[in-house]
Structure formats: structure tokens, C-alpha cells
């Protein structure tokens, strides 16, 4: 039933500047790319993709942006939160060689997909792009699991100076990949889509969500595609049809907000 299950926080960890991970008990199956609605009692309920999966616990990773994430980051072990889900469709992970492109906190939800690819013996390259060095996280985790990890920063404080999408374009010209999986700012993902015409391409989108079960219509994109049900991961064919992809999102009132 789609109502919050109350669970205890097992651990909370600072990953990078303003970025935190919370692990909680949940034995349910969840696919990389799927998400929970996280209820912070008395504050808000927000969608969060899973950033780490074990049989007994799941993790979410987020940047402090507003009241809800601020409240989440101030929680402690054994504090209680409500979780609904998992929701959405998740990534399809197949092929011999995959490129993952995570912009900003996007790498958080890509991480379990990267790990699944590695378990499937898929050759895996990950680009992590952030504004600056202090915002980089999960690079060690993914490197240690066997992924080829590349870093870009806008200010050049670490890795290659520039945007993740530009590095992706360079690599795609030189190396063979069967697919590109991405999560990050929509403009970055739209840029990537234009260079992935010949590849399997999957992008995870973010929209303001309320019901998360496909009836309120708050998260719709294109011709009524629900990010909470048909997404959050969409393939190339769908993304190309979304006239608003990379153009605008909507706030809580449904008003258009240009990127």
C-alpha cells in the first residue's frame, strides 16, 4: 500500500561539501534508478533516488538545498523517517561497454547502476562532473569497484577543467560504447543526447513530485508522461519527443520555470 513505512536511520555520513548520505533499514528490492518518497515528519516529503543497495539497507544521497534536505542532514542514527516506494522504472543495464555521466549530485543515483554494470562484467567508465573539487564524491567508491573514473570540474581544481558533457563527447569520439546513462542538470543531459544519436541513451529526470503514483500530474513532461511512473529514467526515443526536455520544469504551483 502506498503509504509511508516508518524506518530507522542506520547511519548518516558527510560525503562532500554540503552533501550527505543516509542509510536506513529496508529489505525491499529496488532497482538502480528507482526512487523513494522520503517523509521527514513535520517538514516535507521528497523524492530521492537510491544511492546504495544492500539486501537489508538502502541509502539516499543529497545536497542541502532547502528545508527538507537541511532537516534530513540534521537527523541522527535511530531517528525515524517514513519511506514510500520504490517508485519509477529504473535503468536497463546491458551491453559490453557503458559510459556513465553524472553531473553535480547526479552520480549519487548512478552509483548503484555502475555497480550493477560491474557485477555484470560490463566495461564501465564514469565521468563525474562538479563545479569544484570539494563537491566530488563516490569517486573512490566507484574506482575501488573497478570502474574507470574520470573527473571534470568547472574551475579546474581537480581533473579536467570543463563540463562533463564536453569530456563525454571527446570520449565518445575515441572509444566504442554500447550505451550512455546519465543523471545531472537537464541542460547537460540534453547536450549529451545530441551526441548520442547512435547509442542506447538513458537519462534520469527530476521533477517536482506530490503523489508519486501517477495521478496528481505534477511531474508530467511532454505529452503527459509521468516522471514518477513512466520515468524517472527515460530512453532516447522518449526524450526526443519531450518538447520541454531541457527547456523548462514546473514549480509546486505548476508554473513553468525555464532552465
Amino acid at each position: 500500500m502506498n503509504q509511508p513505512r516508518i524506518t530507522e536511520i542506520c547511519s548518516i555520513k558527510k560525503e562532500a561539501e554540503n552533501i550527505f548520505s543516509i542509510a536506513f533499514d529496508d529489505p525491499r528490492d529496488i532497482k538502480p534508478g528507482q526512487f523513494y518518497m522520503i517523509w521527514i515528519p513535520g517538514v516535507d516529503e521528497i523524492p530521492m533516488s537510491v544511492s546504495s543497495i544492500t539486501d537489508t539497507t538502502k541509502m539516499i544521497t543529497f545536497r542541502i538545498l532547502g528545508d527538507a534536505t537541511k532537516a534530513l542532514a540534521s537527523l541522527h542514527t535511530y531517528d525515524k523517517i517514513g519511506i514510500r516506494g520504490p517508485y519509477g522504472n529504473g535503468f536497463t543495464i546491458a551491453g559490453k561497454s557503458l559510459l556513465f555521466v553524472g553531473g553535480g549530485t547526479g552520480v549519487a543515483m548512478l552509483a548503484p547502476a555502475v555497480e550493477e554494470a560491474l557485477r555484470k562484467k560490463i566495461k564501465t567508465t564514469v565521468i563525474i562532473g562538479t563545479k569544484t573539487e570539494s563537491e566530488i564524491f563516490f569517486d573512490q567508491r566507484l574506482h575501488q569497484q573497478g570502474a574507470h573514473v574520470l573527473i571534470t570540474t568547472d574551475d579546474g581544481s581537480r581533473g579536467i577543467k570543463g563540463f562533463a558533457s564536453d569530456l563525454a563527447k571527446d570520449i565518445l569520439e575515441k572509444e566504442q560504447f554500447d550505451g550512455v546513462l546519465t543523471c545531472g542538470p537537464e541542460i547537460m543531459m540534453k547536450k549529451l543526447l545530441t551526441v548520442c544519436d547512435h547509442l542506447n541513451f538513458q537519462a534520469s529526470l527530476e521533477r517536482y513530485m506530490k503523489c508519486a503514483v501517477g495521478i496528481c500530474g505534477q511531474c508530467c513532461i511532454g505529452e503527459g508522461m509521468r516522471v514518477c511512473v513512466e520515468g524517472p529514467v527515460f530512453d532516447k526515443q522518449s526524450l526526443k519527443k519531450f518538447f520541454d526536455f531541457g527547456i523548462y520544469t514546473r514549480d509546486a504551483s505548476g508554473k513553468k520555470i525555464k532552465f
Partner: protein
Amino acid sequence: MNKLITKIGNLQFENPTILASGIMGEDAGSMNRIIASGAGGIVTKSIGIIPRTGYPNPTFVELEHGLLNAMGLPNPGIDAFSEELQQLTKTKTPIIGSIYGANSEEFINLAQKMESYKVDAIELNVSCPHAKRFGLEVGSDPVLLQEITNAVKQSVHIPVFVKLSPNVTSIADIASAAEKGGADAIVAINTVKAMKINIELQRPILANKIGGYSGKAIKPIGVRCVYEIAERVQIPIIGAGGITDGKDVIEYIMAGATAVQIGSAVYYRDIDVFKKICNECTTWLHEHNVKKLSELVGVAHT
């Protein structure tokens, strides 16, 4: 022959299943998808004068036999909404603009703008159970409701529907007031005031604490309300509340409804629920040797 064609005044619906307000009706893309999935008509999300963010989450929770929500009337405001309606694919499917306001002036302003956006009818939301100043505070006062209905009727040339709440002592009295105000149809019912408390956290789940209950659990309440209203008014009634399959439609029609609105069933049976329900209705009519659905309107009143 299409057994399901439905008329409300001069408005013709290919079938009696109309998307209820508040479900996927906020943007052109969603409305286009619902039209393509076979709805006979669409009611937009309720639109007010200025943008409104609604309540913080949680705004939705599934309960044992229905759904509970307190969205708080989120909408981008009437001016921004013109763009959405302009982007609707041109079809024969009637579009009904739902509006909410705090007084006659606001309702008139909204109704006139909606009419200028070329909707086919107006639905007055005077029954939202969880929005302060708006909704139920208007819809539980027969004098105020008659005045507002009349004011809107005088200011537009398209049909005006009034959507009523079951959260009143006598819904038939309220329906009668809307009829006296000149309403072209009554829509009954909106959601039923309800609440869910999480016993582990000892607190209500919804941020607004109280919300509106919809889905299967409220169908008997809706059928009763339609039946009572049908005994009191001459104008058509659009039934709503827990309609999930074809038999539910037949039951509402027999209680006195001419058409129905579908909301929570989009959750239970997904977006193509309109086609599914219409097929079930047609099958039922065939099996019972009924030539057309309209023959059944109000037959349960003996």
C-alpha cells in the same frame, strides 16, 4: 451505433466518462494524453486568480479502500493557464474549466477568462474539503452558492456546472440552490473529509492533517447523493465518487446521473481506464439488451 453518447444541455460527449478535476489536468500534455486515452470529456485542475503552491508534502496517501489527499489547490493561476489551453490538441472532446474563488467577483473574473480560452463549460469548485476560504466554505452556504452561481451564469455564455461536496447536512438543498442560481448541471460528489494518523509516529500523515477521501470507499456515498439530488432538481447530474468500472457507471446512471467523472480509478486501473470502463458499459448494455445508456438515467427512482 454508439450506445454511450451523452448530452448535457447542448454539449455532446462521445461517452459518459469525464476526467475529474485535480487528476493530471494541469498541463496541456497531460490533458492531450487523457483525451487520447478515450475520456469523453476533461475537467481541468481547479484554477484560481493567482498562482498557488498548495500544501507541503505529504499531500497524498493510499488507504485501505481509497485515496486520501490534501493538495491544497495548487495551480499556476488563470493567466498562465491560457497557454496550456492554447496548446491542447483540437478535438471534439469537451473541455470543462474548473475554477475556485473566494467571492462572486473572483468567480466572474475566472469564468470570463476561461470562456475566452475557449473551454466548453465551466465547473465551479465550491467543494474542496481542505482549502481555507475557498471551496467548501462557499459550497455549504446555499444563499452564497445561489448568488455565485447566478453571477457566473450572467457573465458567460457557456454552460455552468456546480460541483458539490458530500460534507454538508443536506446536499439536495445545496443542489437546489445551485439550480435556482441557474446551474446547467450538478456534479456530485467531491471528496469526503477524512484523516489518517500514523500510529508509530503518533501524528497525521498529511501535512494539512485533514484531506479528502476518494476511491471505492466513497462510492455508496456518491450514489446516495446523486439519488437524493435527482429527487430535487430537474437539471442533469454528473456523478462522481469511486467509479472504477462499468458497473459503477451503470449504478450512478440508475441513481440519476447523466454522465460521470473518473478520478482515483486512474490510479487503480491506469490512464486507459476510460476505454476500459466504456467497454465494460457497452458489454453490460448488450448483455442486458439496453439500446443506449441514456435509457437508464434515474431508473432506480420508482
